[in-house]
């Protein structure tokens, strides 16, 4: 009883926060302010506001030095192979070099580019055996040299089941599928090393895969925290390493992580790549996003990579040029229909419901233009994304919707239900329901669940005689590929395929795309697979999300990329040097 009440109370706080902030927050300029933060003594405010988010990340650093603070949630942990949230990744990206990192290309799409640590990555047999060569002479900040053995040891550690690393799956069938993964990932496995990893020389190792992968897809898979090299001290005492990881990137950690408060990084003087601008970077942990917003308005924190929903209505006015609202984040929201059950078995009923919802109006009025109506499963920042693959089904058309529903003979009992969350305002869902009711003449109600897990459990239990309900979830991609936007949630038997969707044609096209060596063919195959989803129409994307962030007057040249990562090394601290 006690605990339930607390949850309800806290949820009420969040809802009320929105009201309180809106009520008193119309004028929020704080130009004549001095920062109370430890980060900077006085803010040379006004001039910096002009250099907005648009400024290129590649521009040469104007000024080096200074300190900057980044708002963050508490990261789950700081071991690279166990880091599966935005917050730890934002920290680790500054501390490690890795093999590939994602960068925005001239055409606006994101692609993996090699880091200075990589010498070459090649395949000789069409994508099954890969030879990875790294540069000689790189070391961790504790002096340990980085060799081929370093990578092999790290990846063996990540894949071994009893080490409980969240990102171990990267080496399994979901992504790379290294030979021998099944043996190390089984519960209680005694084999601790992947058969597919072989050290050739101190600077070269090979990886053998079960099935071939295209070059660009392979590069996508060997980018990000899951493959970051770890020094051997990590495996001796992983708990100590988690508190103070040792890396080889532009920044390093001199003092351990203060849980729930902050993570302090300092410039790594021995870094072999391009050095960062700021001398010190503090990741300040917030548990309440509205506190981030209060601190940002008072110039007390420099970058808020994810602005809280409650702040969005006032943010453009309060921050001016320092408000970042860029379309094309690597995530979308989607609705899914039960294929079993009585209400949604007919595809035309599903189409009618989709056409009855005016997503553009919801994006404008409820999300304040921080979302964009989706026309496919991938936004234009992903190669092959941003196309109008959904067509008229994702377009608001109340007349056609009504016709389709009438032709399909309506729905049993003339009512439908959409899943929502208890303790959440469900504003967008209520608006959606009202539209269905108004445009189709069908009674629409919300079916509330305590959390998404309960919603999915109930969804999977829908039987042939049940009415069923419409579910809703979001999906964020690990890498900027069309496959990663669809295959994990619609591939047959994939652990994240919550809705039990299965179509052999889809699986075949994804697999063919993955193996294609030529990028154009690869994307074409994946687009065909996406078309299968739209033809079946058991799920469809409603919105692409935007990157919504803000920064203080103390800093400039701030860019938050579609994955939600901040360009920390390139940020300029205004009053430094």
């Amino acid at each position: 009883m006690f605990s339930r009440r607390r949850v309800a109370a806290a949820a009420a706080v969040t809802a009320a926060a929105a009201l309180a902030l809106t009520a008193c927050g119309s004028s929020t300029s704080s130009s004549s302010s001095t920062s109370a933060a430890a980060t900077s003594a006085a803010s040379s405010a006004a001039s910096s506001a002009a250099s907005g988010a648009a400024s290129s990340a590649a521009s040469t650093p104007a000024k080096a030095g200074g300190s900057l603070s980044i708002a963050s949630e508490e990261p789950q942990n700081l071991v690279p192979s166990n880091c599966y949230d935005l917050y730890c990744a934002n920290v680790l990206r500054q501390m490690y070099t890795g093999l590939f990192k994602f960068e925005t290309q001239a055409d606006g799409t994101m692609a993996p580019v090699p880091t200075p640590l990589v010498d070459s990555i090649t395949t000789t047999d069409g994508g099954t055996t890969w030879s990875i060569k790294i540069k000689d002479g790189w070391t961790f900040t504790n002096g340990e040299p980085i060799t081929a053995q370093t990578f092999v040891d790290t990846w063996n550690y990540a894949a071994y089941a009893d080490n409980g690393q969240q990102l171990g799956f990267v080496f399994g069938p979901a992504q790379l599928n290294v030979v021998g993964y099944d043996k190390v990932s089984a519960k209680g496995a005694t084999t601790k090393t992947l058969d597919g990893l072989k050290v050739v020389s101190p600077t070269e190792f090979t990886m053998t895969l079960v099935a071939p992968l295209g070059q660009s897809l392979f590069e996508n898979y060997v980018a990000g925290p899951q493959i970051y090299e770890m020094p051997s001290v990590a495996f001796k005492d992983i708990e100590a390493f988690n508190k103070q990881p040792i890396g080889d990137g532009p920044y390093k950690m001199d003092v351990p992580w203060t849980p729930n408060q902050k993570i302090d990084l300092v410039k790594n003087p021995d870094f072999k790549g391009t050095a960062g601008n700021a001398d010190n970077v503090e990741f300040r942990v917030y548990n309440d996003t509205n506190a981030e917003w209060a601190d940002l308005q008072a110039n007390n924190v420099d970058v808020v990579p994810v602005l809280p929903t409650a702040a969005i209505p006032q943010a453009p006015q309060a921050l001016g040029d320092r408000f970042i609202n860029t379309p094309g984040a690597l995530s979308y929201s989607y609705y899914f229909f039960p294929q079993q059950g009585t209400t949604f078995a007919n595809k035309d009923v599903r189409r009618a419901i989709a056409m009855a919802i005016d997503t553009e109006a919801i994006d404008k009025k409820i999300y304040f233009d921080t979302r964009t109506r989706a026309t496919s499963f991938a936004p234009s920042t992903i190669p092959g994304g941003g196309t109008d693959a959904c067509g008229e089904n994702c377009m608001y058309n109340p007349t056609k919707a009504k016709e389709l529903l009438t032709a399909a003979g309506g729905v049993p009992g003339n009512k439908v239900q959409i899943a929502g969350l208890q303790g959440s305002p469900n504003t967008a869902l209520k608006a959606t329901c009202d539209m269905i009711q108004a445009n189709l003449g069908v009674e629409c109600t919300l079916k509330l669940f305590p959390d998404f897990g309960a919603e999915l459990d109930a969804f999977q239990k829908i039987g042939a005689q049940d009415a069923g309900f419409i579910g809703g979830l979001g999906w964020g991609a690990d890498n900027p590929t069309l496959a990663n936007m669809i295959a994990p949630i619609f591939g047959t038997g994939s652990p994240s395929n919550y809705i039990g969707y299965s179509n052999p044609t889809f699986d075949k096209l994804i697999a063919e795309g993955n193996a294609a060596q030529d990028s154009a063919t690869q994307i074409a195959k994946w687009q065909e697979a996406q078309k299968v989803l739209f033809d079946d129409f058991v799920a469809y994307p409603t919105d692409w999300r935007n990157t919504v962030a803000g920064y203080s007057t103390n800093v400039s040249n701030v860019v938050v990329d579609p994955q939600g990562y901040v360009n920390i090394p390139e940020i300029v601290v205004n009053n430094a040097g």
Partner: protein
Amino acid sequence: MGRYTVRRLLQMIPVFFGTTFLLYALMFALPGDPVRNLTIGKQTNPAYLEYIRDQFHLNQPFIVQYLLYMKGILTGDFGHTFNGTPVTEIFAQRWPVTLTLALTAFAIELVFGIGIGIWAAVRKGKIVDNLSLVGTLLVIAVPIFVIGYVMQWVFGVKLQWVAPAGIQDGWPKSYILPAIVLASVSLAYALRLTRQSLLETFGSDYVRTARAKGLPSSTVMRRYSLRNSLIPVVTFLGADLASLMAGAVITEGIFNIPGIGQQLYQSIHLHESVVVVGIVTVLVIVYLVMNLLVDLLYGVLDPRIRYE
């Protein structure tokens, strides 16, 4: 009195077991699969889920989980959060923060609640009395999070007297604003209670007799009126220190203070039973100890009260 105290302390043992059992059962009864909730919206790694379920005995029936937890506690292992942090470490980091906040709030409540209460009672019907009545009415009527956000916006964002959130400036600068917010409602009650109960003693026979004896009015106030009128106030304050700690959930959230309240809220969300049970059990024990202290204080304030 010694035997009484020992008896009361011994009574806490069954309360401890009862509380942990009940709380554990309630956490167990929460709907939803905690492990599954960890990975929704991300690629699921079955090997990792299996690992977490194993680590936290989540595949075991309720009674086995509870007994394993109790076994851990009796051997000094209070369990871990899902990301592997020992609960004892969380306690070491977070209790001092909450305690600092609660004690600061308690001091504010004590000084201003009782102080202004006495002032208002002495000046009954005058401007101080009327102002304090209107003021407390306002504080009691407005929900705490409204007070919190308004204070944060006015003093943190607009005037910038203190940082709007966080504890990076240390005590007292970072704690003063949240402590005022946390104390506000209790302060209002303490003020009204002090005033009311003082006014009652002012009209009582023993105070009239003391005055008639020709004692100086300060002595009458200190030794007769105040001492007698403090019993209900002490009862209230004693229970309140414990609820200040529990009630810090909202204030800690608004001002981003990494205390126990924030942890409780997060852990309930994540279904981290061992953390929730640990925190709430400590809160229950604090409450019991405070109650005992209050009962013992009665004896000091009123020598007629004796404990056997």
